[in-house]
């Protein structure tokens, strides 16, 4: 551990450099267990049940019947080793149990023991293990060191997806009363109150009104942030972090400006005031569905024609890939638009049609790169052509910034490195893991800073943004070097129609985000730091 810390700030490492194996390096890392109340809220036993062994083994069998991916992936891995150097947590920690195949093996060995011929009769031959309490602890530790980013599934010759195994493992743990605090507490809150933060409709309304005032002060335009307005065309579902955290909030202001310029009526919902769906992280179809149905109900109650999602990575995976399954069919919405649509798709279309224009010089102080968020990159799409999820955000960034550069090709797009905080790991007690898991991404960023003078990284994921604002200072970047994509849109969007007013308007247009970031900005600081 001392080594890892000492060499990161000095010289830039190859982001994909394979570490030496350090057995047990992360064995003691584990998130806090859930409060019994939070387990029961989600329909799980409050704490470890007496017959955990039978229940867990039965659950494995149940999942093998309900989910082909789970069964198939446990069956067909040939241990070729192609995935062994693909996980950012392995690259960052050197713990062999963070190699995707080894992580799967923690469960595969037990599955083999109880559900395969070889494992039943020749356990020693195929590494099959009886389920013990130690193994439960091992699962709890290492299945909470997987951010379900699916990078391994890109490189596996059979597409084996460790995320499927880690979601299943968490579901098994939940079913015997070993829930994780961070996820279960948040899901319980979202199922009761509509968002992960537990914000009441009243508090949300007050927050949005304050922001509206700020927007008017900054821009001179009456830009709205509507809540619960029936009959609006668009329902915006955005991560609740957009209501209070930096740089998320600047992204929210960006969406508002885009809607304002588009001249389309929109609203948010206090009933479904959360895009994030942590039900996915714990592999719980039922909980994921319960959260998704809130969005359906909000759309029906408000009588909207379209649903648009704000910048949130796994939310967009659930929205793009699962929402139709969980809460469809959406036959009551306008079928001329994608259901649901991503805010980046919406902005992209407006740019293509020339309906919004930018003064790119407003972003000249930023030399920007884009961090492909794992769930968007490998779990979703945008537009109609494969790879739209890579093209659209880049096109939006290039439309509003003069200085855009990509990081190393092996660390972006479908090969993108996770921020280190996804999958329900964005909790303080896992900070050591999060830092080490982020180090490959940080090395790639440092390379881009070295090569192109990149100063800032933009992202379209609430978890990425929060994670990086905490982690970047450990790697020589200010916490404000992570940006929302729509923050850059917000900075540069031209709100005034009349060309003659343009100059006056521009002075006023500086948003809160730009002021804050601008003051602290200095390209040279970054260079020296890295």
């Amino acid at each position: 551990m001392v080594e890892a810390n000492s060499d990161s700030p000095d010289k830039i490492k190859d982001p994909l450099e394979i570490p030496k194996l350090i057995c047990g390096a992360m064995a003691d890392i584990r998130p806090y267990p859930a409060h019994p109340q939070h387990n029961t809220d989600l329909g799980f036993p409050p704490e470890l049940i007496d017959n955990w062994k039978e229940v867990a083994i039965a659950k494995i069998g149940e999942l093998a019947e309900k989910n082909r991916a789970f069964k198939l992936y446990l069956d067909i891995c040939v241990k070729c080793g192609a995935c062994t150097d693909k996980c950012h947590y392995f690259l960052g920690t050197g713990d062999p149990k963070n190699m995707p195949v080894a992580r799967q093996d923690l469960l595969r060995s037990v599955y083999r023991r109880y559900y395969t011929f070889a494992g039943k009769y020749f356990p020693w031959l195929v590494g099959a293990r009886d389920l013990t309490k130690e193994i439960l602890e091992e699962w709890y530790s290492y299945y909470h060191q997987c951010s379900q980013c699916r990078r391994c599934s890109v490189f596996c010759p059979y597409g084996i997806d460790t995320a499927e195994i880690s979601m299943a493992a968490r579901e098994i743990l939940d079913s015997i009363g070993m829930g994780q605090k961070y996820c279960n507490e948040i899901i319980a809150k979202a199922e009761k109150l509509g968002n992960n933060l537990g914000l009441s409709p009243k508090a949300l309304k007050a927050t949005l009104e304050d922001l509206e005032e700020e927007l008017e002060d900054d821009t001179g335009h009456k830009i709205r942030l509507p809540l619960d307005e029936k009959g609006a065309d668009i329902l915006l579902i955005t991560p609740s972090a957009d209501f209070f955290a930096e740089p998320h909030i600047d992204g929210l202001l960006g969406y508002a400006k885009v809607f304002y310029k588009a001249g389309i009526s929109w609203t948010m919902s206090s009933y479904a005031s959360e895009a994030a769906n942590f039900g996915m992280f714990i592999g719980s179809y039922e909980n994921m569905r319960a959260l998704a149905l809130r969005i359906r109900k909000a759309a029906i109650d408000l009588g909207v024609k379209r649903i648009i999602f704000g910048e949130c990575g796994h939310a967009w995976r659930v929205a793009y890939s699962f929402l139709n399954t969980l809460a469809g069919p959406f036959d009551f919405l306008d079928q001329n638009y994608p259901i649901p649509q991503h805010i980046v798709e919406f902005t992209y279309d407006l740019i293509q049609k020339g309906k919004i224009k930018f003064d790119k010089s407003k972003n000249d102080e930023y030399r920007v790169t884009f961090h492909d968020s794992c769930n968007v990159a490998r779990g979703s799409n945008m537009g109609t052509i494969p790879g739209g999820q890579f093209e659209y955000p880049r096109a939006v960034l290039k439309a509003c910034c003069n200085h855009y550069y990509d990081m190393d090709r092996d660390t972006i797009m479908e090969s993108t490195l996770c921020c280190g905080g996804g999958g329900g790991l964005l909790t303080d007690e896992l900070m050591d893991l999060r830092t080490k898991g982020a180090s490959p991404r940080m090395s790639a960023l440092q390379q881009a800073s070295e090569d192109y003078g990149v100063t800032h990284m933009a992202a379209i994921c609430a978890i990425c943004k929060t994670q990086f604002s905490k982690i970047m200072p450990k790697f020589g970047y200010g916490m404000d070097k992570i940006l929302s994509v729509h923050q850059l849109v917000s900075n540069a969007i031209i709100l005034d129609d009349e060309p003659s007013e343009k100059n006056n308007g521009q002075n006023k247009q500086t948003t809160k985000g730009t002021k804050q970031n601008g003051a602290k900005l200095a390209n040279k600081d970054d260079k020296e730091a890295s």
Partner: protein
Amino acid sequence: MVSLIFAILFYLATILLLGGIAIKIWNYAKTPAPLKIPTMPAPRNGRGVFFRLLREVIFFESLFKSNKWIWLFSYMFHLALLLVLLRHLRYFTQPVWWWVEIIQPFGIYAGFAMTMGLIALLLRRIFIKRIKYISNLSDYLMLLLLLLIAASGLAMKFVSHTDIIAVKAYMLGLLSLQIKELPLSPILLTHLLSVILLMIIFPISKLLHGVGIFFSPTRNQIDNSREKRHLADWAKKLENNNFEREGGRNG
């Protein structure tokens, strides 16, 4: 007596191999994939998925992206194995099919390529720490079994010739349910026994990967979740329980 035992073993192994694979295929086919989880970017239509799978099966596309050495060794092994298998059709066909005649000479080189690929894979498994860490005894033994098959096969060609005419007569006999005399060469019997063992363990081991890939949701699903609703049978039952769905409570 030996001829009879081997005949029984061959019939048994064939039934276990084909029956086992059929059962597994049936199982995978009927197990639902509850959610759309293609590894993106993914094809937008069935044609695209067909070609994605084809590229995986013919070129090992993802493996190539991942690791050039593993790709090289395993590609060498699998391609050579295919040629060797096709070459072996000459022992089961009379007259021998013309294209089997054509690949005949390549099949022999393939025997060497297969052996070298297997040795390289075995050495990786032993000497690269990451791969060693994830290997079980069965992983080594399977490579050794394949090596035994390859080596005993080559030995019959280059070291100690077997009465190949008699072997062919025996195999053709098996196909028409007659038991002819099998030459009692130890190398031949080793070769045949190890093949029989391989056939038996195929459906109940990781060797199933050859079949499994076609059922892998991350590779065989179409990226069309927004356009087409995907719903597993067991999830349909949940649809009746839509307490939230059309509810009257206003948000």
